[in-house]
Protein backbone atom coordinates (compact mmCIF):
# COMPACT_ATOMS: atom_id res chain seq x y z
CA UNK A 1 0.00 0.00 0.00
CA UNK A 2 1.28 3.44 -0.82
CA UNK A 3 2.02 5.58 2.19
CA UNK A 4 -0.87 7.79 3.26
CA UNK A 5 -0.53 11.49 2.69
CA UNK A 6 0.69 13.57 5.61
CA UNK A 7 -2.15 15.60 7.11
CA UNK A 8 -1.34 18.92 5.44
CA UNK A 9 -1.43 17.14 2.07
CA UNK A 10 -4.85 15.59 2.56
CA UNK A 11 -7.12 17.12 -0.02
CA UNK A 12 -9.18 19.97 1.32
CA UNK A 13 -7.07 20.09 4.48
CA UNK A 14 -7.68 23.82 4.85
CA UNK A 15 -11.41 23.59 4.44
CA UNK A 16 -12.29 21.78 7.67
CA UNK A 17 -13.83 24.29 10.05
CA UNK A 18 -13.78 22.19 13.21
CA UNK A 19 -11.00 21.60 15.70
CA UNK A 20 -7.90 19.65 14.68
CA UNK A 21 -5.77 17.87 17.23
CA UNK A 22 -2.45 16.26 16.46
CA UNK A 23 -1.69 13.39 18.78
CA UNK A 24 1.98 14.38 18.82
CA UNK A 25 0.98 17.74 20.28
CA UNK A 26 -0.92 15.92 23.00
CA UNK A 27 -4.65 16.13 23.34
CA UNK A 28 -4.80 15.48 27.06
CA UNK A 29 -6.73 18.09 28.90
CA UNK A 30 -8.92 18.86 25.91
CA UNK A 31 -12.46 17.81 26.48
CA UNK A 32 -13.97 15.50 23.95
CA UNK A 33 -17.07 14.88 26.07
CA UNK A 34 -20.23 14.68 24.00
CA UNK A 35 -18.46 15.50 20.75
CA UNK A 36 -18.33 13.72 17.41
CA UNK A 37 -14.70 12.89 16.87
CA UNK A 38 -12.82 11.50 13.87
CA UNK A 39 -9.51 9.74 14.45
CA UNK A 40 -7.32 9.53 11.36
CA UNK A 41 -4.13 7.56 10.97
CA UNK A 42 -2.47 4.18 10.72
CA UNK A 43 -3.68 1.42 13.02
CA UNK A 44 -0.49 1.55 15.06
CA UNK A 45 -0.88 5.27 15.71
CA UNK A 46 -4.63 5.17 16.28
CA UNK A 47 -4.26 2.38 18.82
CA UNK A 48 -2.29 4.77 21.02
CA UNK A 49 -5.01 7.39 21.21
CA UNK A 50 -8.31 5.63 20.62
CA UNK A 51 -9.26 4.05 24.00
CA UNK A 52 -9.47 7.34 25.95
CA UNK A 53 -11.19 9.09 23.03
CA UNK A 54 -13.90 6.41 22.90
CA UNK A 55 -14.63 6.77 26.60
CA UNK A 56 -15.17 10.52 26.24
CA UNK A 57 -16.66 11.24 22.84
CA UNK A 58 -20.33 10.81 21.91
CA UNK A 59 -19.40 9.28 18.58
CA UNK A 60 -16.03 8.25 17.22
CA UNK A 61 -15.33 7.48 13.57
CA UNK A 62 -11.98 5.83 13.02
CA UNK A 63 -10.45 6.37 9.58
CA UNK A 64 -7.81 3.70 9.61
CA UNK A 65 -5.25 3.08 6.92
CA UNK A 66 -2.47 0.52 7.12
CA UNK A 67 -3.75 -2.08 9.58
CA UNK A 68 -1.19 -3.68 11.87
CA UNK A 69 -0.85 -6.99 13.66
CA UNK A 70 -1.45 -6.58 17.37
CA UNK A 71 -0.87 -8.56 20.51
CA UNK A 72 -1.94 -7.70 24.03
CA UNK A 73 0.78 -6.39 26.29
CA UNK A 74 2.36 -9.38 27.95
CA UNK A 75 3.69 -9.57 31.54
CA UNK A 76 6.92 -11.01 30.26
CA UNK A 77 10.17 -9.08 29.85
CA UNK A 78 10.65 -7.98 26.27
CA UNK A 79 14.04 -9.65 25.64
CA UNK A 80 12.63 -13.02 26.63
CA UNK A 81 9.75 -12.74 24.20
CA UNK A 82 12.08 -11.58 21.44
CA UNK A 83 14.49 -14.40 22.02
CA UNK A 84 11.94 -17.15 22.36
CA UNK A 85 9.33 -16.40 19.74
CA UNK A 86 10.20 -16.40 16.04
CA UNK A 87 8.41 -13.96 13.75
CA UNK A 88 6.13 -16.61 12.31
CA UNK A 89 4.84 -17.53 15.75
CA UNK A 90 4.34 -13.87 16.66
CA UNK A 91 2.22 -13.34 13.56
CA UNK A 92 0.29 -16.51 14.23
CA UNK A 93 -0.42 -15.35 17.78
CA UNK A 94 -1.47 -11.94 16.46
CA UNK A 95 -3.88 -13.61 14.04
CA UNK A 96 -5.34 -15.71 16.86
CA UNK A 97 -5.64 -12.59 19.01
CA UNK A 98 -7.59 -10.84 16.24
CA UNK A 99 -9.84 -13.87 15.78
CA UNK A 100 -10.58 -14.10 19.49
CA UNK A 101 -11.19 -10.41 20.06
CA UNK A 102 -13.10 -9.52 16.89
CA UNK A 103 -16.04 -11.75 16.06
CA UNK A 104 -17.21 -10.02 12.88
CA UNK A 105 -15.48 -11.50 9.83
CA UNK A 106 -15.53 -8.29 7.77
CA UNK A 107 -14.11 -6.22 10.60
CA UNK A 108 -11.40 -8.85 11.04
CA UNK A 109 -10.58 -8.44 7.38
CA UNK A 110 -10.45 -4.66 7.75
CA UNK A 111 -8.00 -5.10 10.59
CA UNK A 112 -5.82 -7.67 8.84
CA UNK A 113 -2.65 -6.29 7.24
CA UNK A 114 -2.04 -7.01 3.55
CA UNK A 115 1.38 -8.37 4.31
CA UNK A 116 3.49 -9.45 7.24
CA UNK A 117 4.01 -6.18 9.07
CA UNK A 118 5.38 -5.18 12.41
CA UNK A 119 3.56 -6.77 15.37
CA UNK A 120 2.43 -4.05 17.75
CA UNK A 121 1.54 -4.33 21.35
CA UNK A 122 -1.83 -2.90 22.41
CA UNK A 123 -4.37 -4.40 24.74
CA UNK A 124 -7.37 -2.16 24.17
CA UNK A 125 -7.50 -1.22 20.49
CA UNK A 126 -9.85 -3.96 19.27
CA UNK A 127 -12.10 -3.53 22.30
CA UNK A 128 -12.32 0.24 21.77
CA UNK A 129 -13.15 -0.22 18.10
CA UNK A 130 -16.10 -2.43 18.99
CA UNK A 131 -17.71 -0.01 21.41
CA UNK A 132 -21.23 1.02 20.35
CA UNK A 133 -20.18 4.67 19.87
CA UNK A 134 -17.24 3.76 17.65
CA UNK A 135 -17.25 3.02 13.92
CA UNK A 136 -14.33 1.77 11.86
CA UNK A 137 -14.02 3.20 8.34
CA UNK A 138 -11.36 1.89 5.99
CA UNK A 139 -12.49 3.64 2.80
CA UNK A 140 -9.82 6.01 1.48
CA UNK A 141 -10.35 9.65 2.43
CA UNK A 142 -11.33 11.68 -0.66
CA UNK A 143 -11.14 15.10 0.94
CA UNK A 144 -11.74 17.06 4.10
CA UNK A 145 -14.86 19.22 3.92
CA UNK A 146 -15.94 22.18 6.09
CA UNK A 147 -18.11 19.97 8.30
CA UNK A 148 -16.31 16.67 8.17
CA UNK A 149 -14.49 14.06 6.13
CA UNK A 150 -15.59 12.74 2.74
CA UNK A 151 -14.61 9.19 1.91
CA UNK A 152 -14.39 7.65 -1.55
CA UNK A 153 -17.61 5.70 -0.99
CA UNK A 154 -19.32 9.08 -1.43
CA UNK A 155 -20.33 9.70 2.17
CA UNK A 156 -19.54 12.79 4.23
CA UNK A 157 -18.87 11.95 7.86
CA UNK A 158 -19.82 14.96 9.97
CA UNK A 159 -17.52 15.52 12.94
CA UNK A 160 -16.78 18.32 15.39
CA UNK A 161 -13.13 17.50 15.77
CA UNK A 162 -10.42 15.50 14.02
CA UNK A 163 -7.64 13.78 15.93
CA UNK A 164 -4.72 13.11 13.60
CA UNK A 165 -2.94 10.13 15.06
CA UNK A 166 0.63 10.61 13.95
CA UNK A 167 3.04 7.74 13.72
CA UNK A 168 5.48 9.42 16.07
CA UNK A 169 2.99 8.91 18.84
CA UNK A 170 3.02 5.19 18.38
CA UNK A 171 5.89 3.71 20.34
CA UNK A 172 5.86 -0.04 20.34
CA UNK A 173 6.95 -2.72 22.69
CA UNK A 174 10.30 -3.82 21.30
CA UNK A 175 9.43 -7.38 22.12
CA UNK A 176 6.82 -7.32 19.40
CA UNK A 177 8.63 -5.22 16.90
CA UNK A 178 9.68 -7.34 13.95
CA UNK A 179 9.94 -6.51 10.27
CA UNK A 180 9.24 -8.94 7.48
CA UNK A 181 10.05 -8.28 3.89
Amino acid at each position, binding site marked *: *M*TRPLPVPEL*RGADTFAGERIHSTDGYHGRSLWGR*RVAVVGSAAAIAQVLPPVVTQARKV*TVFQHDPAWMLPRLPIPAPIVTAVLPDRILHLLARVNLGVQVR*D*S*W*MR*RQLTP*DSATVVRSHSRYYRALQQPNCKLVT*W*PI*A*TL*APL*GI*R*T*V*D*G*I*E*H*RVDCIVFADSDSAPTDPSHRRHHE
Partner: protein
Amino acid sequence: MAFAYPDMLGTIKDRQWALADIDWDAPGAELITDEQRPRLAAFMADLVWIEHVGARGFAALTRKAPDSTLREIYRYFHAEEQKHANAELALMRRWGMLEGDDMPLPNKNIRLVIEWLDRYADDLTLPVLGTVIPSLETALDGALVKFLLDQVRDPVCHEVFRHINSDESRHLAVGFQVLEQLGAGPARRLAIETAGFALRPSFALGALLYAPLLSRMAANIVALGLDEEKLWNAVRRYETVGDRNPNIRRVPLYHVVRYHAKATINRVQPIQLAVDALNAGIDRFPVRILGRPPSWSRELTYDPVAK
Protein backbone atom coordinates in the same frame (compact mmCIF):
# COMPACT_ATOMS: atom_id res chain seq x y z
CA MET B 1 3.30 3.65 -24.52
CA ALA B 2 3.43 1.96 -21.12
CA PHE B 3 0.39 2.35 -18.92
CA ALA B 4 1.22 4.67 -16.02
CA TYR B 5 -0.59 3.45 -12.92
CA PRO B 6 0.60 6.41 -10.79
CA ASP B 7 -0.93 8.85 -13.31
CA MET B 8 -4.16 6.87 -13.27
CA LEU B 9 -4.21 6.95 -9.47
CA GLY B 10 -3.74 10.73 -9.61
CA THR B 11 -6.64 11.07 -12.04
CA ILE B 12 -8.84 8.90 -9.84
CA LYS B 13 -8.09 11.11 -6.84
CA ASP B 14 -8.75 14.26 -8.89
CA ARG B 15 -12.13 13.05 -10.12
CA GLN B 16 -13.71 12.21 -6.78
CA TRP B 17 -17.33 13.16 -6.19
CA ALA B 18 -19.65 12.65 -3.26
CA LEU B 19 -23.35 12.06 -2.78
CA ALA B 20 -23.47 15.45 -1.07
CA ASP B 21 -22.51 17.10 -4.38
CA ILE B 22 -25.89 16.14 -5.80
CA ASP B 23 -29.13 17.94 -5.04
CA TRP B 24 -31.36 14.96 -4.31
CA ASP B 25 -34.40 17.20 -3.87
CA ALA B 26 -34.06 18.90 -7.26
CA PRO B 27 -37.11 18.75 -9.55
CA GLY B 28 -37.40 15.75 -11.86
CA ALA B 29 -38.41 12.88 -9.58
CA GLU B 30 -42.01 13.38 -10.76
CA LEU B 31 -40.95 12.35 -14.25
CA ILE B 32 -41.00 8.72 -13.08
CA THR B 33 -44.44 7.48 -14.03
CA ASP B 34 -46.56 5.14 -11.93
CA GLU B 35 -46.34 2.64 -14.75
CA GLN B 36 -42.54 2.77 -14.72
CA ARG B 37 -42.07 2.68 -10.96
CA PRO B 38 -42.52 -1.04 -10.11
CA ARG B 39 -40.31 -2.40 -12.88
CA LEU B 40 -37.77 0.36 -12.39
CA ALA B 41 -37.66 -0.45 -8.66
CA ALA B 42 -36.87 -4.10 -9.45
CA PHE B 43 -34.20 -3.07 -11.95
CA MET B 44 -32.59 -0.57 -9.57
CA ALA B 45 -32.56 -3.09 -6.71
CA ASP B 46 -30.65 -5.54 -8.92
CA LEU B 47 -28.31 -2.78 -10.07
CA VAL B 48 -27.56 -1.71 -6.49
CA TRP B 49 -26.70 -5.26 -5.49
CA ILE B 50 -24.62 -5.95 -8.60
CA GLU B 51 -22.55 -2.83 -7.87
CA HIS B 52 -22.20 -3.92 -4.27
CA VAL B 53 -21.12 -7.42 -5.20
CA GLY B 54 -18.67 -5.87 -7.69
CA ALA B 55 -17.29 -3.78 -4.85
CA ARG B 56 -16.52 -6.96 -2.92
CA GLY B 57 -14.67 -8.25 -5.99
CA PHE B 58 -12.46 -5.18 -5.99
CA ALA B 59 -11.87 -5.67 -2.27
CA ALA B 60 -10.48 -9.11 -3.08
CA LEU B 61 -8.29 -7.57 -5.78
CA THR B 62 -6.66 -5.26 -3.25
CA ARG B 63 -5.10 -8.38 -1.76
CA LYS B 64 -3.95 -9.79 -5.09
CA ALA B 65 -2.46 -6.85 -6.96
CA PRO B 66 1.28 -7.35 -7.46
CA ASP B 67 2.07 -3.65 -7.29
CA SER B 68 1.44 -1.16 -4.46
CA THR B 69 0.03 1.53 -6.77
CA LEU B 70 -2.34 -0.95 -8.36
CA ARG B 71 -3.41 -2.08 -4.87
CA GLU B 72 -4.20 1.52 -4.02
CA ILE B 73 -6.14 1.91 -7.27
CA TYR B 74 -8.21 -1.14 -6.37
CA ARG B 75 -8.86 0.32 -2.90
CA TYR B 76 -10.34 3.34 -4.66
CA PHE B 77 -12.32 1.19 -7.10
CA HIS B 78 -13.72 -0.84 -4.21
CA ALA B 79 -14.94 2.35 -2.55
CA GLU B 80 -16.20 3.80 -5.84
CA GLU B 81 -18.34 0.74 -6.52
CA GLN B 82 -19.79 1.18 -3.05
CA LYS B 83 -20.43 4.84 -3.91
CA HIS B 84 -22.28 3.81 -7.07
CA ALA B 85 -24.47 1.45 -5.07
CA ASN B 86 -25.11 4.19 -2.48
CA ALA B 87 -25.99 6.71 -5.21
CA GLU B 88 -28.35 4.27 -6.91
CA LEU B 89 -29.96 3.63 -3.54
CA ALA B 90 -30.36 7.40 -3.11
CA LEU B 91 -32.08 7.53 -6.51
CA MET B 92 -34.45 4.79 -5.39
CA ARG B 93 -35.27 6.78 -2.30
CA ARG B 94 -35.77 9.93 -4.35
CA TRP B 95 -38.23 8.05 -6.54
CA GLY B 96 -40.18 6.74 -3.55
CA MET B 97 -39.10 3.14 -3.99
CA LEU B 98 -37.86 2.60 -0.44
CA GLU B 99 -40.16 2.52 2.54
CA GLY B 100 -38.67 4.18 5.60
CA ASP B 101 -35.16 2.94 6.19
CA ASP B 102 -35.73 -0.31 4.35
CA MET B 103 -33.09 -1.55 1.96
CA PRO B 104 -34.00 -3.51 -1.17
CA LEU B 105 -33.65 -7.22 -0.61
CA PRO B 106 -31.17 -9.09 -2.81
CA ASN B 107 -32.75 -11.81 -4.90
CA LYS B 108 -31.78 -15.40 -4.11
CA ASN B 109 -29.09 -15.50 -6.81
CA ILE B 110 -27.40 -12.45 -5.38
CA ARG B 111 -27.86 -13.61 -1.80
CA LEU B 112 -26.00 -16.82 -2.61
CA VAL B 113 -23.28 -14.92 -4.46
CA ILE B 114 -22.87 -12.63 -1.42
CA GLU B 115 -22.42 -15.69 0.78
CA TRP B 116 -19.96 -17.23 -1.64
CA LEU B 117 -17.97 -14.02 -1.94
CA ASP B 118 -17.83 -13.70 1.81
CA ARG B 119 -16.32 -17.14 2.13
CA TYR B 120 -14.15 -17.45 -0.96
CA ALA B 121 -13.54 -14.06 -2.64
CA ASP B 122 -10.20 -13.55 -0.96
CA ASP B 123 -9.04 -16.96 -2.21
CA LEU B 124 -9.66 -16.01 -5.82
CA THR B 125 -6.59 -15.42 -7.93
CA LEU B 126 -5.74 -12.29 -9.89
CA PRO B 127 -6.38 -14.04 -13.26
CA VAL B 128 -9.94 -14.95 -12.19
CA LEU B 129 -10.85 -11.56 -10.73
CA GLY B 130 -8.98 -9.66 -13.41
CA THR B 131 -10.83 -11.48 -16.20
CA VAL B 132 -14.37 -11.65 -14.81
CA ILE B 133 -14.65 -8.11 -13.42
CA PRO B 134 -14.02 -6.27 -16.76
CA SER B 135 -16.67 -8.49 -18.33
CA LEU B 136 -19.24 -7.47 -15.72
CA GLU B 137 -18.19 -3.83 -15.92
CA THR B 138 -18.59 -3.85 -19.70
CA ALA B 139 -22.09 -5.28 -19.40
CA LEU B 140 -22.96 -2.81 -16.67
CA ASP B 141 -21.55 0.16 -18.52
CA GLY B 142 -22.61 -0.85 -22.00
CA ALA B 143 -26.08 -2.20 -21.44
CA LEU B 144 -27.67 -1.70 -18.03
CA VAL B 145 -26.76 1.95 -17.55
CA LYS B 146 -27.56 2.93 -21.15
CA PHE B 147 -30.91 1.20 -20.78
CA LEU B 148 -31.65 3.13 -17.62
CA LEU B 149 -30.79 6.46 -19.20
CA ASP B 150 -33.00 5.66 -22.18
CA GLN B 151 -35.90 4.93 -19.87
CA VAL B 152 -35.59 7.68 -17.26
CA ARG B 153 -35.84 11.42 -17.94
CA ASP B 154 -35.06 12.58 -14.41
CA PRO B 155 -32.07 14.98 -14.79
CA VAL B 156 -30.67 13.96 -11.39
CA CYS B 157 -30.46 10.36 -12.63
CA HIS B 158 -28.52 11.55 -15.67
CA GLU B 159 -26.20 13.61 -13.48
CA VAL B 160 -25.51 10.63 -11.21
CA PHE B 161 -24.78 8.32 -14.10
CA ARG B 162 -22.49 10.84 -15.76
CA HIS B 163 -20.32 10.50 -12.65
CA ILE B 164 -20.72 6.73 -12.54
CA ASN B 165 -19.86 6.33 -16.23
CA SER B 166 -16.79 8.47 -15.78
CA ASP B 167 -15.64 6.23 -12.90
CA GLU B 168 -16.44 3.07 -14.82
CA SER B 169 -14.37 4.20 -17.82
CA ARG B 170 -11.32 4.28 -15.55
CA HIS B 171 -12.24 0.88 -14.04
CA LEU B 172 -12.35 -0.55 -17.55
CA ALA B 173 -9.10 1.08 -18.63
CA VAL B 174 -7.29 -0.44 -15.65
CA GLY B 175 -9.17 -3.74 -16.01
CA PHE B 176 -8.10 -4.30 -19.60
CA GLN B 177 -4.56 -3.16 -18.83
CA VAL B 178 -4.30 -5.75 -16.06
CA LEU B 179 -5.80 -8.37 -18.35
CA GLU B 180 -3.14 -7.54 -20.93
CA GLN B 181 -0.40 -7.90 -18.34
CA LEU B 182 -1.83 -11.23 -17.23
CA GLY B 183 -1.50 -12.49 -20.78
CA ALA B 184 2.00 -11.13 -21.25
CA GLY B 185 3.62 -13.72 -18.97
CA PRO B 186 5.19 -16.98 -20.06
CA ALA B 187 2.81 -19.67 -21.36
CA ARG B 188 3.94 -22.03 -18.62
CA ARG B 189 2.87 -19.59 -15.92
CA LEU B 190 -0.49 -19.07 -17.60
CA ALA B 191 -1.04 -22.82 -17.73
CA ILE B 192 -0.08 -23.33 -14.09
CA GLU B 193 -2.24 -20.43 -12.91
CA THR B 194 -5.20 -21.63 -14.92
CA ALA B 195 -4.91 -25.16 -13.59
CA GLY B 196 -4.41 -23.73 -10.09
CA PHE B 197 -7.77 -22.06 -9.91
CA ALA B 198 -9.76 -24.32 -12.24
CA LEU B 199 -9.15 -27.33 -9.98
CA ARG B 200 -10.45 -25.64 -6.86
CA PRO B 201 -13.93 -26.76 -5.70
CA SER B 202 -14.68 -23.20 -4.55
CA PHE B 203 -14.09 -21.97 -8.11
CA ALA B 204 -16.50 -24.57 -9.50
CA LEU B 205 -19.10 -23.57 -6.91
CA GLY B 206 -18.60 -19.91 -7.85
CA ALA B 207 -19.13 -20.74 -11.52
CA LEU B 208 -22.34 -22.59 -10.61
CA LEU B 209 -23.62 -19.42 -8.94
CA TYR B 210 -22.24 -16.90 -11.44
CA ALA B 211 -23.74 -18.52 -14.55
CA PRO B 212 -27.36 -18.55 -13.27
CA LEU B 213 -26.99 -14.99 -11.94
CA LEU B 214 -25.82 -13.68 -15.30
CA SER B 215 -28.55 -15.58 -17.12
CA ARG B 216 -31.24 -14.28 -14.79
CA MET B 217 -30.00 -10.71 -15.02
CA ALA B 218 -30.00 -10.89 -18.81
CA ALA B 219 -33.50 -12.38 -18.88
CA ASN B 220 -34.81 -9.80 -16.37
CA ILE B 221 -33.47 -6.85 -18.25
CA VAL B 222 -34.77 -8.06 -21.60
CA ALA B 223 -38.15 -8.60 -19.97
CA LEU B 224 -37.99 -5.01 -18.77
CA GLY B 225 -37.64 -3.83 -22.34
CA LEU B 226 -33.91 -3.66 -23.09
CA ASP B 227 -33.20 -4.23 -26.73
CA GLU B 228 -31.31 -7.54 -26.97
CA GLU B 229 -29.10 -5.90 -29.55
CA LYS B 230 -27.73 -3.56 -26.88
CA LEU B 231 -26.97 -6.45 -24.56
CA TRP B 232 -25.23 -8.17 -27.43
CA ASN B 233 -23.23 -5.02 -28.19
CA ALA B 234 -22.05 -4.88 -24.57
CA VAL B 235 -20.70 -8.42 -24.85
CA ARG B 236 -19.17 -7.60 -28.22
CA ARG B 237 -17.35 -4.66 -26.66
CA TYR B 238 -15.57 -6.96 -24.19
CA GLU B 239 -14.69 -9.25 -27.07
CA THR B 240 -13.60 -6.45 -29.39
CA VAL B 241 -11.27 -4.85 -26.86
CA GLY B 242 -9.93 -8.24 -25.80
CA ASP B 243 -9.45 -9.71 -29.24
CA ARG B 244 -7.48 -6.82 -30.62
CA ASN B 245 -4.82 -7.37 -27.99
CA PRO B 246 -2.66 -10.47 -28.55
CA ASN B 247 -1.73 -10.68 -24.88
CA ILE B 248 -5.35 -10.75 -23.73
CA ARG B 249 -6.08 -13.48 -26.27
CA ARG B 250 -3.46 -15.63 -24.50
CA VAL B 251 -5.46 -15.65 -21.25
CA PRO B 252 -7.44 -18.93 -21.23
CA LEU B 253 -10.12 -17.68 -18.85
CA TYR B 254 -10.76 -14.66 -21.10
CA HIS B 255 -12.03 -17.05 -23.79
CA VAL B 256 -14.20 -18.92 -21.27
CA VAL B 257 -15.76 -15.70 -19.97
CA ARG B 258 -16.25 -14.33 -23.49
CA TYR B 259 -17.83 -17.56 -24.72
CA HIS B 260 -20.03 -17.83 -21.66
CA ALA B 261 -21.28 -14.24 -22.03
CA LYS B 262 -22.13 -14.86 -25.69
CA ALA B 263 -23.80 -18.17 -24.85
CA THR B 264 -25.89 -16.43 -22.19
CA ILE B 265 -27.14 -13.76 -24.59
CA ASN B 266 -27.80 -16.26 -27.36
CA ARG B 267 -29.28 -18.83 -24.96
CA VAL B 268 -27.03 -21.51 -26.43
CA GLN B 269 -28.13 -25.06 -25.62
CA PRO B 270 -27.44 -27.20 -23.67
CA ILE B 271 -25.75 -24.54 -21.51
CA GLN B 272 -28.99 -22.62 -21.12
CA LEU B 273 -30.86 -25.76 -20.09
CA ALA B 274 -28.29 -26.44 -17.37
CA VAL B 275 -28.42 -22.82 -16.18
CA ASP B 276 -32.23 -22.85 -16.11
CA ALA B 277 -32.10 -26.02 -14.02
CA LEU B 278 -29.66 -24.33 -11.62
CA ASN B 279 -31.94 -21.31 -11.36
CA ALA B 280 -34.90 -23.56 -10.61
CA GLY B 281 -32.86 -25.11 -7.80
CA ILE B 282 -31.78 -21.69 -6.50
CA ASP B 283 -35.43 -20.53 -6.45
CA ARG B 284 -36.17 -23.41 -4.08
CA PHE B 285 -33.12 -22.86 -1.91
CA PRO B 286 -34.08 -21.76 1.61
CA VAL B 287 -31.73 -18.77 1.96
CA ARG B 288 -32.83 -18.38 5.59
CA ILE B 289 -30.47 -21.18 6.52
CA LEU B 290 -27.59 -18.91 5.52
CA GLY B 291 -28.36 -16.78 8.56
CA ARG B 292 -27.56 -13.10 8.72
CA PRO B 293 -25.88 -11.64 5.67
CA PRO B 294 -22.23 -10.64 6.23
CA SER B 295 -21.76 -7.18 7.71
CA TRP B 296 -20.11 -5.76 4.55
CA SER B 297 -23.37 -6.35 2.70
CA ARG B 298 -25.20 -4.18 5.25
CA GLU B 299 -23.04 -1.09 4.78
CA LEU B 300 -25.10 0.47 2.00
CA THR B 301 -26.66 3.84 2.68
CA TYR B 302 -28.67 6.37 0.70
CA ASP B 303 -27.81 9.13 3.14
CA PRO B 304 -25.12 11.47 1.75
CA VAL B 305 -24.15 12.48 5.28
CA ALA B 306 -23.28 10.30 8.26
CA LYS B 307 -24.04 12.35 11.34
